[in-house]
């Protein structure tokens, strides 16, 4: 799918900053403006970045954080690729991207990411690089190209004012029965929306006998053989969907709107610490509650990556390191601070103080979040990004038509 890049590799410039010489990185980063490209759709997350990371970077490192909101991370990826292909090997516009999955794979394949830096950050010691959900990003080894920011897990959201927990579907098979009983009350965002992709990938796991088959590299023959079951399922689902499947909402934001206004009965979330921030913002009704399928939901990590042509790689490293500070990870986890993002570090690698602080946050999660243990127990891994690309493409063909 992705044509090999014609020009010579750009990564590994001799004068790229070396995190091993951390003092040198920090002193070089002083006075730099850090262009962080990230999805800008959540005002709570934006505010967290601006009000928590920004002041720390400014005060402690003299780095000016310039958060650049994009409507879709793909825009930022595309930008890096275009720049590099247009011959701009240095001084690129993007210093740091919030990224994962197929976007990571794309940049990796285009050799457009700075290599071999993340594991050498001082705070990399808090990261469990061997855990697959951290060390593999959609099956692709992170291998020093990315540094974790946090983790997420797919969850469904229902309105407890409309249903009791016992009435909810607990698997894709159950979902089909449920939509037959509640026609027009369910839909999912159209891929290539991230949440839409994830919804159909989970279905793919369940309908093809589990994720285990798909771990490892892309099995195109297996995919071709097994994926029709998914399209059959989605086509069977379609007539019972919102508007009989003639249209799909374009994004999670739209799905949330449909849910909140009672047009449909479920929406999705990715935040392990729950939907408190969305409820507080008035995006979701106060009676909303998350739930998961017994057959599992996909959990993964998201990362910060530095483009190979970044103008300010040192500042980027400083920030990637900063966000791993246990204290800031705890702040990010606490829904009261507006985000509720999962941890990017491992509790077992922390000192007692830090661990207790984070556990306190986890214990304090209310009914707008699921038990961490429950989430853990149903967590499914991501698989190679090629599956995402293939599912996305075939969905267009078999479902959207």
């Amino acid at each position, binding site marked *: *799918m*992705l*044509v*090999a*890049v*014609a020009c010579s590799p750009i990564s590994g410039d001799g004068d790229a900053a070396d995190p091993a010489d951390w003092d040198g990185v920090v002193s070089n980063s002083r006075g730099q403006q850090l262009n962080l490209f990230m999805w800008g759709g959540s005002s709570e997350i934006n505010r967290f970045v601006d009000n928590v990371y920004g002041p720390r970077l400014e005060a402690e490192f003299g780095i000016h954080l310039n958060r650049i909101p994009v409507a*879709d991370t*793909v*825009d930022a*990826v*595309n930008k890096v*690729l*275009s720049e590099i*292909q*247009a011959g701009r090997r240095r001084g690129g516009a993007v210093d740091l991207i919030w990224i994962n999955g*197929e*976007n990571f794979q*794309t940049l990796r394949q*285009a050799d457009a990411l700075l290599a071999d830096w993340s594991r050498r950050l001082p705070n990399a010691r808090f990261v469990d690089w061997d855990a697959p959900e951290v060390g593999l990003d959609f099956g692709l080894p992170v291998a020093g190209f990315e540094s974790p920011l946090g983790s997420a897990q797919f969850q469904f959201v229902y309105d407890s004012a409309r249903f009791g927990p016992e009435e909810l579907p607990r698997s894709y098979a159950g979902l089909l029965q449920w939509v037959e009983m509640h026609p*027009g009350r369910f839909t999912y965002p*159209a891929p290539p929306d991230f949440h839409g992709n994830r919804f159909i990938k989970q279905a793919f796991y369940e309908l093809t006998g589990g994720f285990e088959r798909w771990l490892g590299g892309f099995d195109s023959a297996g995919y071709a053989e097994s994926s029709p079951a998914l399209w059959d399922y989605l086509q069977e689902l379609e007539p019972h969907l*919102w*508007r009989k499947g*003639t*249209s*799909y*909402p*374009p994004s999670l934001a*739209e799905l949330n*709107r*449909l849910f909140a*206004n*009672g*047009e449909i009965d479920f929406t999705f979330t990715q935040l392990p610490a729950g939907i408190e921030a969305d409820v507080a913002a008035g995006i979701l009704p106060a009676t909303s509650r998350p739930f998961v399928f017994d057959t599992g939901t996909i959990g993964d990590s998201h990362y910060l990556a530095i483009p190979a042509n970044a103008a300010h790689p040192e500042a980027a490293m400083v920030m990637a390191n900063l966000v791993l500070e246990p204290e800031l990870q705890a702040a990010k986890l606490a829904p009261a601070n507006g985000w509720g993002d999962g941890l990017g570090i491992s509790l077992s690698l922390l000192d007692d103080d830090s661990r207790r602080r984070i556990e306190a946050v986890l214990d304090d999660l209310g009914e707008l979040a699921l038990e961490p243990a429950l989430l853990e127990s149903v967590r499914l891994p991501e698989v190679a990004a090629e599956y995402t*690309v293939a599912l996305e493409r075939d969905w267009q063909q078999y479902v*959207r*038509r």
Partner: protein
Amino acid sequence: MFAASRSGLDQVAEPSRVWIRLLPALMVVVPVFVVAVALALAQSLGLLPLVGDSRLSLDAYRNLFSGGELWRSLAFTSYLSLGSTALALGLGVVIALAFRHLFSGSRFGAFMLQLNLPVPHLVGALAMVLLLGQSGLLARVAGSVGLIDGPAAFPALIFDPGGLAIIAEYVWKEVPFFALIALAALGSVADDFEGVAATLGAGRWRRFRHVTLPLLAPVLLPAAVVVFAFTFGTFEVPLLLGGSFPEAMPVLAYRKFTNIDLAARPEALAIGIVMLAIITLAALIYLRLGRRFAGRQ
């Protein structure tokens, strides 16, 4: 489209001075615009690729035209722009005709019609979601008076294959445009012409058919071409209000342009070139029509 000089042209000006005056504008607008179109064309033909070798080929066009996606998108986009242009044109003329006496002598009418002038289509589209959505304000009003028993019973205007909210947004924005232009064209002369025609025995319909309409046509036609081109090329409105299928051409082009697969870029630019070709065609048809009106202005 340019106004002819009322106080006569300056026949005496030296040609060199005329060109000196034109040059700055030409030197900025033309290169940027021409370069943009030329680069779009080149990239659609496989030249200057972001990935792979530069090789002249019609692959992008072949791929596009052999699949059904482009054709459906083309049909949908044409339907959206033609529909909204015609609707806005009709309503604009009706409003101008109804308003021309009400507001003669006061500028309130013209001012009123300019109110939504500074509102970007992006804002208009966002407002349409809240107004026309199945759980939007209109649906709530309908629900509160018992017309519907839930959002699903409200007609699907947003994300619908018929693109009705898109058309509504365009019409909302373009009706004042047409009305303003029609009001200006009617001016004070239309009354005289219609009066004369009436005394010559033309009834209400014939006056409209033989006097008012011919007076409006020469100004409304170019305006319609502008609106057609604009609605054909606007990206934000179909993106925010359009369904997942069919996709308007600008949305399709943008999706391909920002596709992670950089190899899809030539197709994105090819769609852009097709859009330009269709708009050019519309302009040519207008010029052809315009010849029939030659001497009418």
